[in-house]
């Protein structure tokens, strides 16, 4: 905490640690994709790693971990509405007898 504003200043060590963790996760996701896991475990493992990376970026690079909870709420709200948009769309597209011909 700085004495001026209470802005958190992340240490260089912390930031490099997050950067290296993101690199390791990138290598991991490429390696796991190469294993050729059966569906749906391929997509589930890829998304689990991507979500972990996204969490690290949002929490530490974007500083949500030290920030006011309101900004975290905005991000979580955006994700909730995204899931809502996809769910309602899939309720239509997954249950069509025939896909629209020109699609």
């Amino acid at each position, binding site marked *: 905490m*700085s004495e*001026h*504003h*209470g*802005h958190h*200043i*992340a240490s*260089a060590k912390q*930031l*490099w640690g*997050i*950067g290296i963790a*993101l*690199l390791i996760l*990138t290598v991991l*996701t*490429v390696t796991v*994709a*190469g294993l*050729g896991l059966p*569906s749906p475990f*391929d*997509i589930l493992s*890829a*998304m689990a*790693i*991507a979500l972990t*990376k*996204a969490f690290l*970026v*949002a929490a*530490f*690079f*974007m500083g949500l971990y030290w*920030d*006011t909870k*309101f*900004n975290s709420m*905005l*991000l979580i*709200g*955006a*994700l909730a*509405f*995204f899931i809502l*948009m*996809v769910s309602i*769309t*899939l309720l239509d*597209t*997954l249950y069509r007898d025939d*896909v629209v011909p020109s*699609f």
Partner: protein
Amino acid sequence: MANHSATHPKHVHHHFVNSNQQFESAKLGMWVFLVNEILFFGGLFCAYIVFRAWYPELFTQAALELNTFWGAVNTVVLIGSSLTVAMAIRSAQNNQKRGLEINLLITILLACVFLVIKYFEYEHKLHLGIAPGSFWNPTPEIAAVLDHPKANIFFGIYYMMTAVHGLHVIIGIALMVWLYLRARKGHFNSEYYTPVEITGLYWHLVDLIWIFLFPLLYLIE
């Protein structure tokens, strides 16, 4: 308020109580914009999910035309640029003018590397006739391995998602150049670095989008 200038730092606008409130308001505004960005890209991800659910075999086939190696290199490049942006903010917070300038320059350089790699990927595909939608006109060799009737739709989604993302990278570069020029003039210090902070938030979001685009487009086996 006769003593206004005595009690307020120069960068604080009249309608804010103090520097910190102004900073937090700017950051809140940026987060609201990022919510809008997430839902904007969300529409494209939604199209991806719908078409992948309809044609799972198409995505497995078509992804083979994407080069995993260069996709991975670009992922590393963007992660590196996110790290340098975070370091740039840290430099500004610690009054390190030189560190701020150098980190911004490295970020600009990495963003350009990303675009150059992306350009060569596009160039290679378009050369083979792998184009989106009605421009789909593959060479016989490509048509032989990728004979799915909806192949053009996969690449419609691929080009749309990566091009809109690339547009964000270009805008990001312009913002970083602007920050660099202001940093050189000594506009930023530990008391005032709001533009660095909120441009950093934007840049991290561009990185976040790519973190999902990479496995979804390149890593389907």
